[in-house]
């Protein structure tokens, strides 16, 4: 069987990876509602509040806030809740058991708190230990999807994900598109 890594590298791949469940119609139906839930700070649908706090904390270590906004400002946790109650509901068990396991590790280290209460250094140490696990993969995927999907799906608040990478969303564009085709001395004269 193809490993995930091999899969991503398989260059016949026209597109990247996906998460197993594919009930896209549910996403469409509830997408806007998720954006609204985020803005009204409504309670979560799939996630218990404590789990949500830990998940949000993991997302914030994957894409930390700094000079530019990160997973927190993007509201990625709202995307996650939406995904886990919709098209990724098949992964909900993986996520909740992964969180329970992570918190067992916290206790095993003699720390009297849940993951969210740790300092960033301790959080990173624990995440490094589990970064090859399917649980981390799932959260990693949801963090990126939540950062970059259309805001209607719950994350990417005020387009902070798109602004981070310099992606502008417009209905259309006109040339020049970039630096090299905009230069007057571009060497594309002959073959056109």
């Amino acid at each position: 069987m193809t490993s995930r890594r091999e899969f991503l590298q398989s260059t016949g791949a026209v597109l990247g990876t996906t998460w197993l469940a594919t009930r896209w119609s549910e996403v469409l139906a509830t997408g806007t509602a998720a954006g609204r839930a985020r803005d009204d700070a409504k309670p979560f649908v799939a996630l218990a509040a404590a789990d949500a706090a830990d998940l949000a904390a993991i997302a914030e270590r994957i894409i930390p806030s700094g000079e530019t906004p990160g997973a927190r400002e993007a509201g990625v946790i709202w995307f996650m809740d939406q995904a886990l109650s919709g098209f990724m509901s098949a992964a909900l068990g993986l996520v909740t058991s992964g969180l329970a396991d992570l918190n067992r590790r916290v206790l095993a280290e003699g720390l009297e708190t849940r993951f969210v209460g740790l300092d960033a250094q301790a959080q990173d140490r624990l995440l490094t230990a589990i970064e090859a696990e399917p649980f981390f993969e799932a959260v990693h995927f949801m963090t990126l999807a939540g950062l970059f999907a259309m805001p209607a799906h719950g994350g990417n608040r005020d387009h902070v994900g798109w602004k981070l990478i310099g992606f502008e969303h417009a209905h259309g564009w006109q040339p020049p598109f970039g630096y090299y085709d905009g230069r007057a001395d571009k060497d594309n004269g002959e073959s056109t």
Partner: protein
Amino acid sequence: MTTPRVRFAHRKPVDFAIVGSGAAGGVLARELSTAGFDVVVLEQGSYRRAEDFSHDELSVIIQHEISSGASGTWPQTFRRAADQKSVIPEFPAAYYATTVGGSSVHFSGNYWRLRPVDFNERSRLGAIKGTGFADWPLSYDELEPYYTRVDWEIGVSGAPGPFDPPRSRPYPLPPMPVKSSGVLLERGARAVGLHPQVAPVAVLSRPFNGRAPCIHCGFCMGFGCETGAKSSALATMIPQAEATGRCEIRPESTVYRLETDGRGRIGEVLYYDRDGGEQSQRARCVIVAANGAETPRLLLASESSRFPDGLANGSGKVGRYLMFNAHSVTHGVFDHALNDYKSVQCSRIVHDFYETDEKRGFYGGGGIDGRPFLSATPILYALNGLPPDGPRWGAQYKARLAEMFTRKMVVAGSTTSLPLETNTITLDPELRDPWGRSAIRVTYRDHPDDLAMATFLQDRAVDILEAAGANRIWREPVLPSTIGAHLLGTCRMGDDPETSVVDRYHRSHEIRNLFVCDGSSFVSSGRGQPTMTIQALAFRAAGHIARFARAGEI
């Protein structure tokens, strides 16, 4: 003004039932209805129009809103060889669009003709051991008028290049504007002695036949075009077919069986409607244009006591010789912003390595292009677009994400695939779809020469990116394919009923009123970008089929 849509009775035979409304099916429907025949097109996907498409990457790409990835609805399995157990892959192995207009709706529109060599390379080079390498039963010259028809019927933008095959008419539309990736590809390729040329694309650079030109939205590969500038079957052939008043497009109609009668002719096409109800359409003649994965599946699933191995399968070749076109992908990062996420994928290509060169030590040829590839949209960029060696999370990862999106491009290579009898579409013995049909099982392993060619093109891609001034270059390893978006060869055409499924007019060797015309008809793979040829074949086939129908020879 919209023509009232025609509806045909199910029990009264229509002249033609066409299975699939994609690149080939759209052309066949338009040509046959224009020629005066009654046509019903059965399409499993929904009828979405330009205004139904969106830039919603999560729904369209990740959740397969319009494509075969919906594992619940269109499940597939994959294995590399017959002695392996097949598994449900994370991503569909046979990747195609399930919507009216088929995969031409979400494709990138790179439109390359085949060249004379593609049709007779077996004669030129001799047999290749262990493969089904063969000539086509037709030549480039025979197909040339139909390539020209495709150019002018659907609207292709481009300009001639130094290695192009002869053409009887210029491109109808001037090239698309060059992108930064095109400028850089051109600069790098020239510097290493190659001959870059304009990328021909099935996208309008100017208004054409009442359609508006491309607005360079960038949501092109994998998405439906919201303006109709992409020259898909949906934007071109299908409205023209419907306007004749003799063509009914029947969406959400999943054909599960072609029923043969006592005379060994097909009388009925059985399908499920949107509610799962069993329906049937009678027809005098059936044309299967469901693509290189679904066409063989349907023929195999239609087995009967008279045709125990499936329809049109006396040769045993239905579902065999599947060809994907191998790939290589090489990334380069530059100092300034390319913004390659804007506009269509490709604006420049390199065809210097099209021909097989025995000095390389292996069979094959291919093409190179410059494009954003998967980094055209943010989620796929984040999943696929960064170098493999850095951190995958944390502040440094975030900084990298931020730095590269606007500054990178891909130089992609696409190659020949040798036809192998062991690369197949078969029916999965276990997995069923929601209707109870056997799922598609894809068995695929590239011939070593195909991977050698992909690697050769990757070496050239590195040369090009270096010469263009990339500050960072990385290769995606060339590995055996697990996914194909080009689904070719599974009902190959030929004169000999022992070794092919359809004849040179796309009529099945065994069943007189069954024709097959789509990517499955290919004998060899070309060098990538097969759809121009799929449509040229469909125009040609439609002419012959109409002739047979008029002469009472169906």
